[in-house]
């Protein structure tokens, strides 16, 4: 399984440039928002965490649709489906690799963006923490969409449509945990714990559903 993890990481570095696309897209989003809200720094710092979260969510979508399609196109998926290793585990590892290649760099880059958005230290820390904990959930949900996309000849927008509505709870709790850490009055822990719960929940449901979909699309 480490072999799969390493291979996928290698591939995204060699070919996709996954990490950088994500980070650059993220930067683009963050660069554009100030034009929208104007140079009002107080407002910027207020919506900062939300923008960072939305940027991370959208950036995770880039490249996600081909997570399994690329494997199908060259026949690797066939061999993976045949193995004794539970397919769920294979999916989980591929999710992990995708997360490390695309979302982790965003988590690491988020403090920089926080500075751009004039966020306080607490806000930056809270955003980073919630992102770290919450972004895997997005990848797991996305894996279901990616597995469904194997039945489609090509990837594209459809996958994002199927995936985005399901990610909303993650976004809500991620953002609200950040805000309660910064402004109060509500405590930080409850939404944060729910966020962790969501990630764990989708870490189970996502790969299982993706594996189910993959089993049903092979032909």
């Amino acid at each position, binding site marked *: 399984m480490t072999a799969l993890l390493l291979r996928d990481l290698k591939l995204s570095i060699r070919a996709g440039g996954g990490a950088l696309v994500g980070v650059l897209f993220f930067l683009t989003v963050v660069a554009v928002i100030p034009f929208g809200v104007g140079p009002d720094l107080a407002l910027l710092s207020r919506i900062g965490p939300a923008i960072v979260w939305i940027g991370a969510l959208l950036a995770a979508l880039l490249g996600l649709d081909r997570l399994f399609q690329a494997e199908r196109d060259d026949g690797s998926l066939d061999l993976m489906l045949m193995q004794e290793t539970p397919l769920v585990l294979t999916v989980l590892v591929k999710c992990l690799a995708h997360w490390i290649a695309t979302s982790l760099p965003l988590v690491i880059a988020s403090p920089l963006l926080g500075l751009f958005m004039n966020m306080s230290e607490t806000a930056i820390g809270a955003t980073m923490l919630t992102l770290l904990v919450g972004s895997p959930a997005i990848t797991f949900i996305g894996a*279901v*969409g990616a*597995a*469904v996309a194997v*039945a*489609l000849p090509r990837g594209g927008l*459809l996958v994002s*449509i*199927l995936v985005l*509505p*399901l990610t*909303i*709870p993650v976004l809500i709790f991620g953002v609200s945990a950040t805000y309660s850490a910064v402004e109060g009055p509500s405590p930080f822990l409850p939404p944060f714990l729910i966020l962790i719960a969501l990630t764990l929940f989708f870490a189970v*449901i996502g790969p299982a*559903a993706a594996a*189910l*979909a993959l089993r*049903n*699309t092979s*032909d």
Partner: protein
Amino acid sequence: MSETSLAITKFSDLANPTRFLALAARILPWMAAFTALCFIVGLYLSFTTEGDYQQGETVRIMYIHVPAAWLSMMGYTIMSLSAIGTLVWRHPLADVSAKAAAPLGAAFTLIALVTGSLWGKPMWGTWWVWDARLTSVFILFLMYLGLIALNRAIDEPSKAARVSAVLILVGFVNIPIIKFSVDWWNTLHQSASVLRFDGPAIDPEFLRPLLVMAVAFTALFFTLHIMAMRNEIWRRRVAAQRRMAARLASREG
């Protein structure tokens, strides 16, 4: 030849679209009549009962808004049950049922959304707010549309059904969110007053038309659902026969 075709007849009897068609032909007229009757009574009641002292005449919107909202959730539930049928038993009728329910569910969700908006303007002073209930219903609508799009994008029906089934089941998490969002987040929207664990907390004056309308909408849903299922079976039958014709032609030609 005759022997094989007999075996095939038995096999398709098991899967049973033919028996379904026979059944549908028998009960559809009755269901249509029942639906019409319920609507006549329901509409009569909704326009003759008293207005609310607080909400005025707008309470009449409830008689369509609430049944439509219920049906939007029920439609998805039916799709989820069908999805289980598809994945576990691989029953072809389950595929058909899920596919036929999607546009109907989307239609009722749209009604709930629009009537809710029309109710919101006089009550809350705005067409739309991003509160939990409203947004989760909006997401339900998007999910219906997404599933319809997915189904159309895969042109092998049984595969489309299996793939959609997985997504339908994953998307089912949204249904409890819709139902309980008003309890979990305090929002503008009314909390449950009919479908509660401790019985309805609503004036019988409003309850009567509401329930009749709910029955009418439900009957309409099922009538249309069976009609749509029948259409889908016919569609597949046409496709299968066309393909058979093409194969035979290419064999002989």
